């Protein structure tokens, strides 16, 4: 009774107050907002960018403060609470590079298709049927030229809608010690830099060096062919376990454990397994193993992480002569990249019983306590001391064995220590550098025997806006916000010159699909002010107000 009385009273008072505000001010003030960002240690450049952006946007009459929090909190708010009443407005976000992202499908579809808006990756709530059509069409268009046409349209469409405020494609910085490795023997992969399997296979140790000692800032949580726990572990799994195809240095899928592949029709593909391959325990790699490797993830209860990559497979059959036929549910241009080049080949004789034992236990393959890690890849697993280092050794029986004897990855949780160890030679290949690029450049100059390789990232850094909420439901407002940010300042100030301007979700690193000229656009606070003024926004007492009649939903 008592509580209800209070509720009624509160409702009464607030409605009076509300009506007073609405009637007294014909235009409503744009509310104060938070720009979510990760804490500085997680990446200094985006953090600085957030600070500069907030400072810039406040010149428009907005009141934005940067809210730097650890990732779980930020992601919780942005991802799980996207539909809440009091949710996020602006957030810094990033897409990182992965081999399968060399195909534009993943970003184009998952980030913007309306089907992923409620719970999936379209957390910004961008819903546009016209765009959905484009995203769906590029998937099933097998002709590259025609597909490029559609991807171009999609990029332009998103730019016009100011779906995101794209900031930059960072330059990836990698460095190796050229007194330990032959200069130039590392291989650059489009959009990924020199940290890739081609480098590991090709790099030539010199001066008595035998090992490649890489480093990771993140802790490795698992080395498991059925589990992707974080960015770093996939660098390791992909070299222990072979795949049928691999994304080549040019970004296109090419035969690997498959000798060749052949599209029978748009929904059928025949893959011929390379003959003479063997697992790390000496047993031969068979067609049965290949089918097992693709069937296992179809059971999402047991192998949940990889199950999306085999969703499109209807069935598989052995056609004899080392040939496996994949029958697809629908045609998919990205199938080679996102499935054949993604699924780890595992020996049925070892993993079969392990997965069977999991049935009905409620546990899945991610919890396997690996006594052995058996793959067929060019490097085989030797030792992992958790939170310290992983040691892999050359598989001399591989059809493409590496020149290094061992591949070692040290887990060093901070940039400064990583750099220190690299300078001392304790680490000879800097694979995970998230620090200040100018520091690295200085060191290269000082030390002399370091080869620095920079490449444009497939991924990108951007500021996301919540399309579900006013004022971000207004394309003019979004455009103004996006265009207020001087991308040159972003590149030069926040990223210290270590990035290129971004204008779409397709990186210039993917030169074929990147739309020319999409990064060329005017920016500036004055331009933004003009857009806002044209759209009817006004500034009173230094604060931006909505156009007359527009009311924020409460």
């Amino acid at each position, binding site marked *: 009774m008592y509580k209800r009385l209070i509720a009624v009273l509160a409702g009464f008072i607030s409605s009076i107050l509300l009506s007073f505000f609405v009637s007294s001010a014909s235009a409503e003030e744009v509310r104060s907002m938070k720009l979510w960002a990760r804490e500085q240690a997680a990446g200094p450049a985006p953090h600085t960018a957030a600070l500069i952006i907030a400072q810039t946007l406040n010149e428009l009459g907005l009141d934005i403060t940067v809210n730097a929090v*650890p*990732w*779980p*909190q930020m*992601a*919780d708010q942005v*991802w*799980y609470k996207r539909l809440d009443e009091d949710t996020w407005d602006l957030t810094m976000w990033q*897409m990182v590079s992965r081999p399968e992202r060399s195909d534009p499908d*993943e*970003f184009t579809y*998952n*980030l913007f298709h309306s089907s992923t808006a409620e*719970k*999936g*990756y379209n957390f910004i709530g961008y819903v546009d049927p016209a765009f959905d059509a484009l995203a769906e069409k590029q998937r099933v268009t097998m002709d590259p030229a025609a597909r490029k046409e559609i991807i171009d349209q999609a990029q332009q469409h998103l730019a016009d809608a100011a779906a995101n405020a794209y900031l930059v494609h960072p330059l990836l910085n990698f460095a190796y010690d050229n007194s330990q490795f032959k200069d130039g023997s590392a291989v650059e992969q489009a959009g990924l830099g020199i940290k890739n399997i081609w480098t590991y296979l090709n790099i030539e140790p010199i001066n008595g060096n035998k*090992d490649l*000692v890489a480093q990771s800032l993140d*802790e490795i*949580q*698992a080395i*498991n062919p059925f*589990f*992707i*726990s*974080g960015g770093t572990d996939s660098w390791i799994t992909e070299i222990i376990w072979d795949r049928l195809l691999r994304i080549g240095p040019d970004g296109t899928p090419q035969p690997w454990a498959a000798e060749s592949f052949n599209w029978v029709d748009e929904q059928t593909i025949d893959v011929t397994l390379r003959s003479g391959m063997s697992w790390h325990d000496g047993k031969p790699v068979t067609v049965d193993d290949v089918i097992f490797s693709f069937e296992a993830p179809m059971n*999402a*209860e047991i192998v*949940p992480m990889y*199950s*999306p*990559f085999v969703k499109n497979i209807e069935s598989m059959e052995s056609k004899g002569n080392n040939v496996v036929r994949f029958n697809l549910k629908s045609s998919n241009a990205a199938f080679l990249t996102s499935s054949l080049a993604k699924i780890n080949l595992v020996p049925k004789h070892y993993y079969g019983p392990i997965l069977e034992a999991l049935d009905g236990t*409620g*546990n*899945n393959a*991610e*919890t396997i*306590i690996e006594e052995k890690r058996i793959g067929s890849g060019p490097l085989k697993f*030797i*030792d992992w*001391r*958790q*939170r*310290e*280092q992983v*040691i892999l050794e050359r598989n001399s029986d591989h059809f493409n064995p590496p020149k290094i004897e*061992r591949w*070692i990855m*040290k887990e*060093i*949780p*901070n940039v*400064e*220590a990583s750099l*220190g*160890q690299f*300078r*001392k030679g*304790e*680490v000879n290949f800097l694979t995970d550098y998230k620090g200040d690029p100018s520091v690295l450049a200085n060191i290269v100059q000082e030390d002399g025997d370091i080869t620095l390789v920079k490449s444009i990232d497939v991924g990108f850094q951007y500021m996301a806006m919540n399309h579900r909420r006013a004022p971000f439901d207004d394309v003019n407002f979004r455009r103004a916000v996006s265009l207020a940010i001087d991308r040159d300042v972003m590149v030069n100030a926040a990223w210290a010159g270590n990035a290129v301007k971004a204008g779409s979700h397709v990186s210039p690193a993917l030169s074929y699909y990147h739309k020319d000229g999409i990064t060329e656009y005017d920016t500036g606070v004055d331009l933004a002010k003009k857009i806002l003024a044209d759209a009817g926004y006004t500034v009173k007492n230094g604060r931006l107000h909505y156009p007359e009649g527009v009311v924020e939903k409460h």
Partner: protein
Amino acid sequence: MFDFWSIIRRFLYMIFVLWIVATIIFFMFRLMPGSPLTAFIGTTFTDEQHDLLVKRFGLDKSLFEQYSLFLVNTLKGDFGLSFTYNKPVIDMIIQALPNSIILTLFSLIIAYIFGVIAGAYLAWKRDTLVEGISIPIVLTTRSAPEFWLGMIALAFFSFQLDIFPSGGTSAAGVIYETTLSKLTSLHFYYHLILPSLVLALYLQGLPLLLMRSNMLEVMQEDFVTMSKMKGLSSWRIVIYHAARTALLPVATAFTLGVGFAFGGNVVIETVFSWPGLGRLLVFAVSSSDYPLAQGAFIFLTAILILMNFLADLMYLFLDPRVSYKTKN
């Protein structure tokens, strides 16, 4: 020697405190902002996967159910599965524990050996210039943030002079077959030196000041005066008579210090990439890995409480006067 039942009672009480702490921690983690599943968010992260994870980690159960399950499992020594590592938490802790124990003990021993000797010496040198200079220096070392000292030590001894390695428990490519072979390897101790010296520099202040004031007190005692009258050498008096008695509270402080330093090592473990329990906790907390964080925290607490308990017991054993009183 002592009252058996009072020790049993104290022990049970210790368990009670542990239970309260575990409960507090359990609810703090459950009510914490941020979802543990964010670690899995990727472009291919589907609803189905999300639901599976929720079920697997038992997050779909009510808070009370989760709590009772947690209690039962903890009693069985099962701290659950780490969200991020997908490994039993207890395994992760057991892996990290030896590293923390060694780091803690090693630095405490250095700190206490130095502190006790220097403290006794400063008591001897009371009201001299040596003391006038030393005491502010000691207080200053206790005032410096450990990680700052660590940063400077790292920059100087490792990066600049290249005397010590900069972190971890081994150089790249070194394999320790077992925990034992690690703990008996010289290579391991070479990596231990710098972090433990930095830690010891911070820790030595307490035993030093404690030893000094105890010594000053003991030196006033009649039996020390008597020893002087006996014509015993100063050296003998200090070592055999004064220091022996003055050491009692220091020994207790050492035991308490073990429990305390365990928790305090977090920062040093981070600076020196030392794979210990503290760093595990920091990682677990920042990635909302409740089971891991809970497990690590409960372990740290258990060590602390156990050490407090041992300190009490030790006093009984070390001081004949106390044990005598208890006996009667």
